[in-house]
């Protein structure tokens, strides 16, 4: 790409939305939903009946809300939403070590029989969902950071403000 083409591509950002980041954001949300509908699906008696289930539900609601807001924010190259997405993305990796990992390592009794709370298959699936979600959100944030920087420099060079 020549310098001229690069300049035009940057100038296009004044009128074209950052759909790349927002679409990655939607992908992150989609895989979070996949994760959430899969995490509690096995019949493991009363294992999940504690405060963690409430916290996980509330966290997921907050996650969805912020992720949706961020998807709109990054569409318009809003820098602050990049950090929100990076935070949410990192949290998806942290979440692997909370419910899924704990459930995978835990045993519970169903009809007086000791069983694993989360089998290998389910654990692998939910971890994959969380990883994809996390990667998508971090990528969305990083791409928006880069584009925001490019757009800001371009606007400065042509004497406009964001």
């Amino acid at each position, binding site marked *: 790409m020549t310098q001229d083409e690069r300049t*035009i591509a940057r100038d*296009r950002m004044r009128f074209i939305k950052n759909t790349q980041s927002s679409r990655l954001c939607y992908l992150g949300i989609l895989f979070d939903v996949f994760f959430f509908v899969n995490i509690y699906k096995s019949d493991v008696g009363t294992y999940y009946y504690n405060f963690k289930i409430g916290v996980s539900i509330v966290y997921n609601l907050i996650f969805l809300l912020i992720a949706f807001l961020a998807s709109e924010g990054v569409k318009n190259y809003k820098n602050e939403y990049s950090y929100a997405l990076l935070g949410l993305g990192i949290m998806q990796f942290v979440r692997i070590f909370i419910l899924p990992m704990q459930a995978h390592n835990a045993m519970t009794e169903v009809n007086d029989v000791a069983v694993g709370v989360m089998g290998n298959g389910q654990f692998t699936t939910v971890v994959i969902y969380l990883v994809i979600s996390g990667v998508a959100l971090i990528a969305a944030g990083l791409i928006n950071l880069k584009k925001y920087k490019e757009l800001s420099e371009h606007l400065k060079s042509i004497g406009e403000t964001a």
Partner: protein
Amino acid sequence: MAELSLQHIDKIYDNNVQAVYDFNLDVKDGELIVLVGPSGCGKSTTLRMVAGLEDISNGKLLLDGKDITDAPAKDRDMAMVFQSYALYGHMTIYENMAFSLTLRKENPNVIHKKVLAAAEILGLTSQLNKKPAQLSGGQRQRVAMGRSIVRNPKVFLFDEPLSNLDAKLRGSTRREILLLHKRLKATMLYVTHDQTEALTLADRIVCMSMGHVQQVGTPLELYDSPANIFVASFIGLPPMNFFDVTVKGDTLEGNGFKVSLTPEEKQTLAGYDGKEIVLGVRPENITLGNDIPVKVTMNENLGMNTLVHGNIGDTNVHMTAKLKGWFDYSNGDTATFSFDRKHFFDKETTNAIRGGNV
């Protein structure tokens, strides 16, 4: 380079209703042709046939000598601007203007250049990030034009683009279209029922009625030498006055008035002596004089001009005069007028009587 040729074009619908009869027109490169006529005269149908939105029943349509009669609309390289703008409400102005090029999968940087150039021409640069709902009617119509400009088509087609705008905006947008035509030097076909638009915009006007072409000519030709009573009555505001008169030597005798003919007029009417014809006089060609007594029925002051409506003598023959200046006639007042420029029409054929044409 875009020359358009419409040859013997008919439009006959499935129910055998014929909307256009034997339409012939050669449009030169860079010419702005206005199709004008009352509602239902076939002007929009003709435009839609040119655009490829309606099938051509008979005849040929040539673009730069190439027969495109049966070519699909997308392959005709023409862009149409509709009365209703036809913008996508969920897209920004930039996206609306770029849309057709995006569909063609053109290079985004090329699209960007074209959109910015079109926006610059149309004064829309500061509106590019807005949605159509945030713009005024005139601005939206400019976006619709911009969408056509970015495509760089061979022919621009306008279907009553100003009809949705209020009078003031119509005037300014009309001037913008004229400037646009001068700047782009593109071939344009423009449909309107508004004779003011036709007269101000056109290089040539095609006046239509009931599917037939009545006259093709420059605005001045249509105004000054109308081919028949229809064109004479349609072009000009207020419309031309018509009187049934009998040619008697070097005078015309009408109901309640007599006017003398100049030698040139007498020559024009040679062969009509003793016959009834239709005399046409434009309101602006009537001046205060001493030939025709008129009982005033209404006085309309327009500022620079005054429209005086009345009946000739004691008859019910109505006429309207457009006088320069401010006059305050009351109902029942009598004013006396003279006719300056006269038009003569054959009573049977309704065609204009030209010199030597009997």
